[in-house]
């Protein structure tokens, strides 16, 4: 009888499904979290873009163009009323541009010192972000247009015109590290335990620390290689360019610290779960939160306040920021120092947690 056996199979599957409340919870929770996090991380309105304004030398008096443009820029609001720009007024062009190249501000508007109609207003934009450059450009054009002055506007994208794939590609490097360790490393570890391979180690004179070192070491190298491969694919396909040879070293450094941290984190997770399903659903959830809030898809600046907080404690956000700074903006240690610090802190913590929880499974 087809029906009877089908019912039997149906019942068996259902019994198993219901016997694991954790997995049920996670499977229901996931889509809801997708809605909340993905929806907010991707669709957020971008506000408070930091820009600088200044009037070029020789500086005499603020021209009416400058004052009325500044007023117009200040009065730009989004529909639900937060300011579009956070404006800093500079007195010299050099410090404004250096702040721009250090990532403190995302655009600089330079107004002419003498008000004749043919003098240009220069606009420098940090073009490495997604959406933000066009918002700055349209905002500035709109504000100056409102003043009634007809001065031409000269736009410079300081990192050239980047396409979305270049912006996104950098995020995917970090995703590769995450995926390799979460799916490959963690599940392999749980499978090893299920198959008794780990128990096999334990009756040999192998030191517990060698087991841990070997496991985290191999995971780190796998993750690191995955990151490197995607990095080179980015160069080939997305067409990103690396300007200095030492930038490669910085990229590898960031990839390495990130790999060892995430691998250790995964080892600790895999030690906690004896069940592949539970592990997989937890990890998928982690991946969702960490990747979505990392700024890989969409600028962190566009996220709602509470999501920004997650990105503050999200190691992937630091990794993405560091890589973007090096790869897209060719910025050095002065900019990514804080990212390196955060990543090192995270990795050290993860290594400790990883060792402690893995060791417990070996006792």
């Amino acid at each position, binding site marked *: 009888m087809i029906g009877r056996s089908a019912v039997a199979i149906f019942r068996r599957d259902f019994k198993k499904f219901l016997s694991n409340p954790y997995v049920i919870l996670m499977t229901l929770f996931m889509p809801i979290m997708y809605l909340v996090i993905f929806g907010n991380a991707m669709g957020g309105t971008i506000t408070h873009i930091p820009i600088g304004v200044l009037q070029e030398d020789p500086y005499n008096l603020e021209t009416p163009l400058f004052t009325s443009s500044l007023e117009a820029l200040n009065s730009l609001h989004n529909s639900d009323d937060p300011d579009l720009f956070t404006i800093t007024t500079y007195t010299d062009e050099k410090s404004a541009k250096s702040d721009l190249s250090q990532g403190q501000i995302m655009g600089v508007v330079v107004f002419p010192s003498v008000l004749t109609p043919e003098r240009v207003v220069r606009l420098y934009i940090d073009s490495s972000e997604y959406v933000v450059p066009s918002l700055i450009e349209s905002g500035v054009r709109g504000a100056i247009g409102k003043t009634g002055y007809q001065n031409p506007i000269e736009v410079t994208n300081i990192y050239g015109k980047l396409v979305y794939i270049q912006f996104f590609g950098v995020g995917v490097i970090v995703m590769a590290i995450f995926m390799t360790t979460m799916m490959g490393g963690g599940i392999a570890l749980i499978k*090893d335990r299920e*198959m*008794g*391979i780990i*128990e*096999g*180690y*334990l*009756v*040999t*004179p*192998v*030191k517990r620390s060698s087991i841990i070192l070997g496991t985290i070491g191999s995971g780190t190298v796998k993750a690191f290689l995955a990151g490197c491969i995607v990095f080179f694919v980015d160069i080939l396909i997305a067409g990103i360019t690396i300007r200095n040879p030492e930038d490669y070293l910085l990229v590898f450094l960031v990839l390495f610290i990130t790999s060892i941290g995430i691998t250790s984190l995964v080892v600790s997770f895999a030690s906690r779960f004896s069940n592949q399903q539970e592990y997989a659903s937890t990890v998928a959830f982690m991946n969702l939160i960490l990747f979505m809030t990392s700024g890989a898809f969409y600028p962190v600046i566009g996220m709602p306040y509470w999501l920004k907080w997650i990105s503050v404690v999200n190691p992937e956000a630091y990794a993405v920021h560091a890589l973007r700074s090096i790869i897209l903006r060719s910025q050095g240690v002065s900019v990514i120092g804080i990212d390196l610090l955060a990543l090192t802190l995270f990795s050290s913590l993860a290594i400790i947690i990883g060792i402690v929880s893995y060791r417990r499974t070996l006792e």
Partner: protein
Amino acid sequence: MDSSYSDDIIKIEHLTKIFSNKKIVKAVDDISLSVRHGEIFGLLGPNGAGKSTIIRILTTLLKPTSGKAYLKEYDVTKEPEKIRSLIGVCPQNGTLDIELTAYDNLEFYGKLLNVDDLSLEPRIWELLEMSNLKDRAHQQVRTFSGGMKRKLEIVRAFIHKPLILFLDEPTIGLDPESRREVWEQVLNLNTHNTTIILTTHYMDEAERLCDRIAFVDQGRLISLDTPDNLKKALPSGDRIEIGFTDLRPDLIASLQNNPLISSVEVKGKTLCIFSKSGNKVLPSLLTTFEQYSHEMLSITIRSPTIEDVFIYLTGNNLSNSGDNSGINAIRGAK
């Protein structure tokens, strides 16, 4: 061989292990025994008797609740690292990496077990030869049959020529031919001056391989001796079973008077007669039945096996389910 048996290599004193997850289970209950150097020592008992727990304690995977266990002069709880370099273990559940080849599995363990690099390769080939797996050396273990996997796992436990080799249910789930091959291998390894501890619930296996057998049931040591002595300890001798439809009590009385018969029992529709010499008593049995014109449905005569000793000692057969054949014990073992 006997003279080299004098020194004890394993000593267990009042060993107890209590598991207290949800339900408190006394898996090992005050066991004391010792294993002699160079012997094949069998731990025999039904599933759940505590055999694997004893092995897991001796191989440093579990800590005893109380009592002591020594391998050579090392205490299992105090010097586990020392012990791990003395022993080879082939656990009950396979721990081969089925995604690696046979060669790679051996090489990996050789490295874990500190076999030096120079002798490792010839050693691996020697072991592959020993287990008849030479031509499959570079194939993934997942393609192997159950017997091949088991043989590989046993030689893997032996790669560093351990002083003591633990085999936990080495032939579980194997077909008769593979079992015979494994037995051969075990006997072969024993000639290398290795002490072998093996657990099994197959009586024939224990009888065939072991120099001495310890019967374990419900965590307790019931008896420990050579197979021959164990059998001698059976008071009854050969066992003759006669099937019948109905039985007259005076027949039993008459049988009991026979000097060759040591005891008579009725189990359902079977009459069990025990005698030191079954062959001699059989003709007189037939005469007695004829005399009472009593019908016989069947007649079987069996010499005592280790299983009989076990049943005699525990009142249970190895399947521990109360039915009357060892077949279930074998069937149940998957």
